[in-house]
């Protein structure tokens, strides 16, 4: 078959170009692929004029495993461990998105208790993911270690809770078609209430720590402003688009499970700078705690076990399935053209992928040091972007 070889290769290496009428040459700096502030393997080529950034070009693909192709060769339930490794900060959220797609394709209803249990675990997962982000983000900005230790202390407790429920610490593989793997532990509700109280108590200390700190405020306020129209046009999702004033959250706009029964707010800010993106994520954690308490109040205690994994599972229908979820980092979409026992084609839309593509627009005509304030506030996970 004749394929067109039309792709232009990217030139490698640092080089210096001189402008004729300028004393200061434009310099090209390589950041990464391995750099402590990039959270994964990301190479950024930055052209600077003095200390001002003129052009930024992210180079991705260092972690490309070909997950989409790999998944076409495996049965539906064999793909669960792969999908979790997309986002190691919030594996359960991707797990849920994938299993929801398969459930839609096969035509299985999820048990009521399992739906409530999934909501609780997903919200705890969102909190854990935001805590990981907050700790590392503040660390990057030069406010070393206190916030990092606090955030990771709370994250460890959250992960311990999820470990007690699912049986493993990081990659849970806890969901099955129509429900969960095993029964919830007997003290599930008590522990969840206790954890929600603990988290609320600890999280309420954070603003005093951060917002009275002039380093944090000066490095985030009015840095990396994304206007509302741009945010929509460039396709930003999740906390990034909500910080720019767009009220879009899949849990409200296209509700799944019992989110339409629960009362909660979508935090929306208007400035669209790094500070607003921090604020949106912080308030989301508090909303998650609200959701968890309400779900625990109305959750029935019945059987929540789903179908066991068999070599030949229930066959999928032939229609294309599109499912959406609000992941901690934004709107995740799975587009699947199903075959009977495995996906014919599965496309994974990563929210980080589109959020990172905005970096060249945000990081224009700013100081070099602010690049990491902006990159950090976008909250990208490279394993999910490269797939």
């Amino acid at each position, binding site marked *: *078959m*004749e*394929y*067109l*070889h*039309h*792709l*232009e*290769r*990217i030139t490698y290496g640092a080089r210096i170009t001189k402008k004729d009428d300028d004393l200061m040459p434009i310099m090209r700096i390589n950041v990464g692929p391995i750099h402590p502030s990039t959270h994964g393997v990301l190479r950024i080529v930055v052209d600077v004029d003095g200390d001002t950034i003129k052009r930024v070009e992210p*180079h*991705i*693909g260092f972690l*490309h495993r*070909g997950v*989409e*192709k*790999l998944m*076409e*060769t495996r049965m539906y339930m064999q793909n669960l461990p792969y999908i979790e490794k997309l986002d190691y900060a919030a594996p359960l959220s991707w797990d849920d998105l994938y299993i929801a797609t398969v459930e839609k394709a096969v035509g299985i209803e999820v048990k009521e208790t399992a739906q409530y249990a999934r909501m609780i675990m997903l919200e705890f997962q969102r909190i854990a993911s935001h805590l990981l982000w907050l700790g590392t983000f503040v660390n990057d900005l030069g406010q070393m270690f206190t916030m990092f230790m606090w955030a990771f202390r709370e994250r460890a407790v959250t992960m311990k809770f999820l470990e007690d429920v699912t049986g493993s610490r990081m990659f849970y593989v806890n969901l099955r078609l129509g429900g969960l793997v095993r029964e919830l532990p007997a003290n599930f509700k008590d522990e969840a209430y206790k954890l929600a109280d603990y988290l609320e108590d600890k999280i309420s200390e954070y603003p005093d720590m951060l917002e009275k700190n002039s380093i944090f405020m000066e490095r985030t306020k009015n840095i990396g402003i994304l206007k509302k129209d741009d945010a*929509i*046009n*460039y*396709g930003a*999702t999740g906390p990034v688009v909500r910080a720019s004033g*767009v009220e*879009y959250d899949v849990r409200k*706009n*296209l509700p799944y499970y019992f989110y339409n029964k629960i009362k909660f707010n979508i935090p929306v800010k208007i400035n669209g700078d790094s500070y607003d993106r921090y604020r949106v994520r912080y308030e989301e954690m508090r909303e998650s705690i609200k959701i968890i308490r309400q779900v625990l109040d109305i959750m029935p205690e019945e059987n929540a076990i789903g179908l066991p994994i068999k070599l030949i599972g229930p066959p999928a229908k032939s229609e294309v399935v*599109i499912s959406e979820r609000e992941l901690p980092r934004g*709107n995740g*979409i799975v*587009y699947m*053209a199903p075959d009977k026992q495995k996906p*014919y*084609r599965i*496309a994974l*839309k990563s929210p980080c*992928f*589109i959020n990172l*593509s905005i970096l060249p627009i945000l990081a224009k005509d700013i100081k070099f040091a602010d690049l990491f304030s902006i990159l950090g506030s976008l909250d990208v996970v490279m394993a999910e972007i*490269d797939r």
Partner: protein
Amino acid sequence: MEIQKEALLKTLRGLKENGYDTLKYITAVDKNSYIEVVYLLYSTLSNNSEVVVVEVDGKKPEIDTVTEIYHSADWYERELAEMFLIRIKGRNIKRLLLEEWNGVLAPLRKDYVWGSDYKKR
């Protein structure tokens, strides 16, 4: 909705004027003789979603760029060009994910079998 390849730009412009202000995702499905390119659109005002499907020829796949209408198409089109070797008309495509890839095989097309080029390396 399924549309002809020639009507893509006109359709998307029309949809954008009618409130579909966000392009969420572009992806493609290889159906052996042809490739389906899928555009997922969304309206933040009316909370409606729309799926636009375009069929392109499998032997010589070409499609118009939509970056002028939706800027979010930028990286998705670069990904399509790499993974399906679809020529994006009106754009000079730079490599995005696979900078070292040979550019002859399309990784997500069905005629590329997983692991088939392993021995050659």
